[in-house]
């Protein structure tokens, strides 16, 4: 089983070294750098605002760009079509008829996606942090790097499961989920936002980067970052990741996939 997963992982990494994938890698790494640079150099008198305001704004911007958008976009592009791409290429049956084929393909692709997305996120973050002039750069870099290592596996697991449940409309469903849950529901100041990955990451970012500007009862923002200790969020994210990947494997084993070529019964 492990050998099969390693084989799929190696194969997927070989695929990742093609020109289009390399281009995507560069786009993901350059995206936060470009946006951060744009904000920094277009912001007028950013050092003259209230004390700490620029630090908070630039840190939240980096958070939104790297552990959130880059991680989401990278894993969305890689893990969501894990099954549908093989079904479209009609190669699924090849892989699925091997003893551990289906599970190995799923896990191998998942690991390849996670390890492929983390490096551009870290590269982008490393360049973008000093570019924003956020002040305590080392602390912000460490915190957001840690979040990258949590967000990529978690988002990849979510998209993997969605890709297995909805192989025909995987991308549409994944984008809809991201927009509705991670970008809307996560900002609703109610218990429901605790169900999102975004809430956990945001809470960790606020804690690790000491972003207490929102941490006031007057702002009404307590529900957006919660009061749980960091370990609680980390454990939740790690458990969520494992549960989602396991669920994807279970659903995959239970499902009957047919390729577009299966019109002949």
């Amino acid at each position: 089983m492990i050998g099969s997963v390693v084989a799929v992982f190696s194969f997927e990494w070989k695929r990742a070294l093609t020109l289009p994938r390399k281009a995507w890698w560069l786009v993901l790494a350059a995206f936060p750098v470009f946006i951060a640079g744009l904000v920094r150099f277009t912001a007028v008198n950013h050092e003259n605002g209230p004390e700490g305001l620029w630090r908070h704004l630039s840190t939240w911007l980096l958070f939104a760009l790297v552990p959130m958008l880059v991680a989401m976009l990278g894993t969305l592009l890689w893990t969501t079509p894990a099954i549908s791409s093989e079904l479209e290429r009609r190669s699924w049956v090849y892989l699925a008829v091997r003893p551990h084929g289906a599970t190995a393909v799923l896990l191998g692709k998942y690991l390849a996606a996670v390890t492929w997305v983390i490096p551009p996120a870290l590269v982008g973050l490393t360049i973008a942090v000093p570019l924003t002039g956020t002040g305590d750069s080392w602390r912000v870099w460490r915190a957001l790097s840690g979040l990258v290592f949590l967000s990529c596996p978690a988002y990849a697991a979510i998209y993997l499961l969605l890709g297995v449940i909805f192989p025909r409309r995987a991308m549409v469903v994944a984008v809809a989920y991201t927009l509705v849950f991670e970008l809307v529901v996560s900002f609703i100041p109610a218990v429901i936002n605790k169900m999102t990955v975004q809430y956990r990451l945001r809470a960790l970012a606020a804690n690790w980067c000491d972003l207490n500007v929102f941490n006031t009862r007057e702002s009404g923002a307590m529900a957006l970052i919660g009061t749980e200790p960091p370990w609680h969020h980390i454990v939740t994210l790690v458990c969520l990741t494992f549960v989602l990947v396991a669920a994807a494997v279970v659903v995959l084993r239970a499902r009957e996939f047919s390729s577009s070529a299966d019109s002949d019964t």
Partner: protein
Amino acid sequence: MISRHMSVLIELNEITKDYGQFRALDRVSLQIQSGITGLLGPNGAGKSTLIKVLLGLVKLTSGRGRLLEFELGRQSREIRACVGYMPEDDCFLHGMTGVESVQFVAQLSKFPATEGLRRAHEILDFCGLTQERYRTVETYSTGMRQKLRFAQAIVHDPPVLILDEPTSGLDPEEREIMLNRIRVLARDHGKAVLLCTHILPDVQSISDSVVILARGRVQVSEGLAQLSRPATPSLEVRLHGNGDRFVERLGAQGIVTTAGQNGFFVLQGSPEELAASVWRVAEECGIGVRSMTPSRNSLEEIFLNAVRAEPQRD
């Protein structure tokens, strides 16, 4: 290799598979022995569904079955480990060379990378893919892709092979070579082969038995030798020269003869008993016998009769 006591390769008992309202397999019961079995049927007959059921790719609606000693639906992983499947679809893994894709499949079948590579080269040699194995599969011709898919099916040395249209798209020479490979695997290496194809001469030339499906039901499941035996035994004779006296002399001996074209005759009776008379009369008449074979039902005839037969009413 299939052990001798395990001559029943596949045993299906009242297998039914529904896709929503559509019944793809309708209470299919059959036993497939080891050797080469041709699986025939028109489009939509249920052949692909039957293969998917055997491989555990789809779940049974009802019924039970087993492949070797493993139960269908419950021991899919074990079944997949001992089955080599060559799908009909022109599916291949982009960006890989031929040898890499066979190695990859071997690794998915639990072989370590180095052993997978060794086996890949060995199997590609057997399949006749020489230097082409180092080219990416996108550049392969139809024939090369067929060889590659065949190699991927057998790389883990499975005792059972399910081959879906293994000769489609091949030129006559390549087709004959492919059939020979299948023959070699079955006869010399003891593989059990389920050959699913629309090319009836392929089945006729290498199969030991035939299963014909139509409308999701088994219409025929029998040994090819028994199926080919005509209802009335007869002997087909082709002569060199004028056969009028020959027919006359045979008629005098009470042998009913039907004349065809170009010296072709069909003699009614047991081929074994007729053969001696044919040689003697031909010598007496001074004509040569070009060929003499027992009459056989053609597979095409058997297939059409099976497919056109009215579905059984329950």
